[in-house]
């Protein structure tokens, strides 16, 4: 145990360079988290501007041109630069720890994914400096997205999403390989924490869905820049093809956003109820079922597009079917709390808020499946209300719960409970005040993506309320930021296992060392760490097992492992270099007139990065 620490220390652990070259899944996870949070603040400011514009009729805060850019960027940012990367942050940090592994399967590929995400995100945002941001909505419906080739706004969108897609596919391959090959001895698939399962499901979802939109984005890019006619109705093409390709990706994408949050809630509820998850197998399989069925419901985004009644009926039924496994999760979570001893700490509050609000979003989702009513609801504020109940009231609440829950593991410090509760209650109030009225607005005929509405249609009052609510949400995050900043210095010392956790990450120090586990744990059951602490008495109640001092897990280590040196992969700047090259290449594609130079430079840099990466030794300075 003692011989371990030194041999992994190849590099100084501080300084900018150490972050740029890191291949440690925990540091990459933190990079994802910080970056995603920064983009979250930007998207929040965009949302506040949107709400300010809509606070009253005939708003004049923003021009139509600015408004269209802001709502496009808000959606694009929240989906691709906030929720997906925040999920990546949790998965990066926790997947190896929860599996009893020392890193992900491909640490440098992991770094590549992060840097590509960061650079592509910055590239998309740089469009504000180059004549305006994408303004064709995040879905980029063709032929609108192919129009106005005099501006490059939608090229930033097309190329940016393509690059983000590459980053996500690389991540997915990495996570799948990690789950299948890096589990600790005894960690069978059905002993994996639910969060790991959900990470696995979304990795498959991304792997199979991103290529569809990737093809669409290439076609659109060729339409815009090379005179192709993939979506040109006058040339006999069908613009609806784009919608199919987009939503074959876009609907699984919705589950990509929310399933990790469901995984987080499935980890938190048992810990704060002091009971195991109710029906682990049902929760796991319902998550997998959502993943499978999620590929069969895409056209419910297109019920008014004119597919024909038979297709509409088919997708109505498939959409109803997917409500079933979603309901199962809700019931099993409530079952988890039932009969427990519920400790109302902040992570628990956010998880309970997730459940209540997700139920509303789920039920309004069912009303979309009732196709004739969706003829009215589609593309209105009712839809905006629905997906914010799912993705903000659901997913964001879940991810915030996760931050409160794992912050002690990441930093060794506790977040303040009092500030956390202020944050929670303000966010519940602000969230519901913002988005509940949008149900009413939508049903009363207010379409989404409209930069103004006239007097006389009855939209003033609820829009005013929604705007007040949005600023309350913003206020709640002020408390969150204060809490985060304060905790770094003044937070209580967490210790290894502040919540009396159930999963393996709590068996490591806070924060964990680079190699995670001094000795790879041997797993004997689901929630193995809990079972090293507790047994059940004859009534089935948990009873504390007397702690074995010192090497509590000594007996659980791999047989024959005589504490040989642990070799962690060396830091490398090649992944960052390769991703930088790809983004330069992307810039060149957008500005083709002079951009051929950038295309060339980008290609050379990217290839240099990839070759350097392939040829460098995995660990340098090997001492044996």
């Amino acid at each position, binding site marked *: 145990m003692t011989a371990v620490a030194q041999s992994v220390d190849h590099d100084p652990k501080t300084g900018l360079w150490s972050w740029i070259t890191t291949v440690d899944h925990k540091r990459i996870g933190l990079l994802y988290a910080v970056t995603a949070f920064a983009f979250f603040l930007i998207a929040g400011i965009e949302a506040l501007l949107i709400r300010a514009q809509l606070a009253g009729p005939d708003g004049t805060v923003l021009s139509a*041109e600015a408004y269209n850019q802001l709502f496009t960027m808000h959606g694009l940012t929240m989906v691709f630069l906030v929720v997906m990367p925040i999920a990546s942050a949790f998965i990066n940090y926790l997947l190896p720890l929860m599996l009893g592994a020392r890193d992900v399967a491909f640490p440098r590929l992991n770094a590549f994914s992060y840097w590509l995400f960061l650079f592509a995100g910055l590239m998309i945002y740089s469009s504000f400096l180059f004549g305006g941001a994408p303004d064709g909505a995040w879905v980029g419906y063709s032929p609108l997205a192919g129009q106005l080739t005099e501006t490059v706004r939608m090229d930033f969108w097309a190329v940016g999403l393509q690059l983000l897609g590459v980053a996500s596919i690389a991540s997915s391959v990495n996570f799948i390989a990690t789950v299948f090959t890096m589990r600790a001895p005894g960690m069978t698939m059905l002993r994996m924490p639910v969060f790991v399962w959900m990470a696995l499901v979304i990795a498959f979802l991304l792997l199979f869905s991103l290529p569809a939109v990737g093809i669409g984005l290439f076609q659109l890019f060729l339409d815009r820049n090379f005179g192709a006619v993939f979506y040109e109705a006058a040339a006999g093409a069908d613009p609806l093809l784009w919608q199919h390709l987009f939503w074959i990706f876009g609907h699984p994408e919705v589950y990509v956003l929310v399933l990790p949050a469901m995984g987080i809630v499935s980890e938190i509820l048992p810990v704060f109820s002091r009971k195991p998850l*109710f029906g682990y197998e049902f929760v796991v399989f319902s998550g997998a079922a959502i993943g499978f069925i999620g590929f069969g419901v895409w056209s419910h985004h297109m019920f008014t597009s004119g597919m024909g009644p038979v297709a509409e009926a088919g997708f109505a039924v498939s959409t109803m079917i997917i409500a079933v496994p979603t309901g199962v999760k809700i019931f099993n979570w409530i079952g988890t709390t039932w009969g427990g*001893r*519920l400790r109302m700490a902040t992570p628990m509050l956010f998880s309970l808020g997730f459940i209540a609000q997700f139920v509303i979003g789920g039920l309004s989702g069912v009303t979309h499946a009732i196709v004739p009513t969706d*003829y009215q609801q589609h593309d209105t504020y009712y839809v905006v209300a629905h997906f914010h109940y799912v993705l903000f009231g659901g997913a964001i609440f879940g991810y915030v719960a996760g931050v409160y829950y794992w912050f002690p593991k990441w930093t060794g410090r506790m977040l303040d409970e009092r500030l956390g509760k202020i944050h929670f209650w303000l966010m519940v109030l602000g969230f519901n005040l913002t988005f509940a009225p949008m149900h009413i607005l939508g049903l009363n005929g207010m379409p989404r993506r409209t930069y103004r509405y006239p007097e006389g249609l009855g939209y003033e009052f609820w829009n005013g309320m929604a705007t007040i609510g949005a600023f309350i949400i913003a206020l709640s995050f002020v408390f969150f930021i204060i809490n985060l900043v304060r905790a770094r210095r003044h937070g209580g010392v967490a210790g290894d296992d502040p919540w009396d956790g159930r999963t393996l990450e709590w068996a490591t120090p806070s924060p964990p060392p680079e190699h995670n586990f001094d000795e790879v744990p041997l797993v004997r059951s689901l929630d193995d760490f809990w079972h090293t602490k507790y047994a059940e008495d004859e009534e089935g109640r948990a009873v504390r097992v007397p702690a074995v001092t010192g090497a509590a897990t000594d007996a659980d280590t791999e047989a024959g492992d005589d504490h040989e040196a642990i070799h962690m992969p060396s830091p490398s700047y090649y992944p960052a270099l390769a991703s930088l090259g790809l983004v330069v290449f992307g810039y060149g594609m957008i500005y083709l007139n002079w951009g051929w130079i950038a295309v060339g430079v980008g290609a050379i840099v990217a290839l240099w990065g990839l070759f350097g990466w392939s040829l460098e030794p995995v660990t340098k300075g090997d001492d044996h």
Partner: protein
Amino acid sequence: MPPERREPGPGGIGGGRSRLGGTGRRAALITAAVAVLGACSGSGPQSALTPEGPIARQIDDLWDLVFVLAVIVFVLVMAVFAVSIFRFRERKHDTREPRQIHGNTPLEISWTVLPAVLLAVLAVPTVRGIFEVRAAAEGPDVIQVNVTGHQWWWEFEFPDMVSDDGRTLVTANELHIPAGVKVQLNMTSRDVIHSFWVPPLNGKRDVVPGRISQLVLEADAEVADKDFGFGPGIIPGQCAEFCGLAHADMRLRVFVQSPADFEAWAAAQLEPVPIPTEGAAAAGYETFNSTCTTCHRAVVADADGAVTTLGAERTLEVDGVTFLDQFGPDLTHFGGRSTLGAAILENSEEHLADWIDNPSDLKPMAPLRNDLEAGKVLGMPSYGIDAEQIAQLVEMLEAWQ
């Protein structure tokens, strides 16, 4: 009934213990008050919840059914959830560990099957509703309207309403229909995807380039006399699919009239308007004929009754159907319309003068990107016409009732 489904969050139930319980209860109270207000709030003239015809009513009935079921499910689930949170929350001095229940298969199977059964029941009226709402209108009384979606206005042609000399009835942004009669819209787009939506009369239907989409409108007989705030029988609607810069300003109005009034309106619309021969209007006509007819059409008659159509006729062929595809709205009976700029402004001399001066001041468009040769139109440009000429044009156009 508008939905008031929202919940105070779990703290409304269990929040009393912490120091923040007060805030929690207040939050719950405010949210509850908002919910009640929501239930009482008026629906407005463009609401899907106040159907004014049989098709919209069928949709609304289905909505009422699914809404009530959703509320029941929500209340039941939240009641159990609330009981669980309240009953099993940690209390001081309570150190007994809970029983470690790992699951209950019969229970879990039942809460998998029950929702499935409920949804299967809902699927029946859903599928039936799809086929009924989407059924094309048939019969001799049905009125056909060909709709062309433009960035950012609506062009309407009644192909079966033809003048003696073979002209069809053409108008823009204001669709007149007879009450109690089915009106079949056959729609296509000349540029990007739009969506035609008049919520009190039917759900929306996307208007897609290269395709014909169909929508049936039908208003109740008494709607012709109802005032929704814009005058008797006038129902507002708008484009519901994001179509670029002025998407929010691509509005329309449906004028529901008694069949007799509709017939009279249609007959008047088919008449040409007179060429003004004296005063300011005559000067305005010169400007109109030299500048405006590049994009706009008007059917005029001289003093002898000779009828001329000013402006080129442009059309668009989709699946064998010919749609009108003019660069700008037909202005023949412009003075008789109640709005301008795709139903965003009342039709007054002042608004019209401002519009002709620079349309982009009133509605965000991109006329600098127009390329008429290529058929690309993104709004009406400012022609730099001086104030006097504008006044002349206004006088002429407003006289074309």
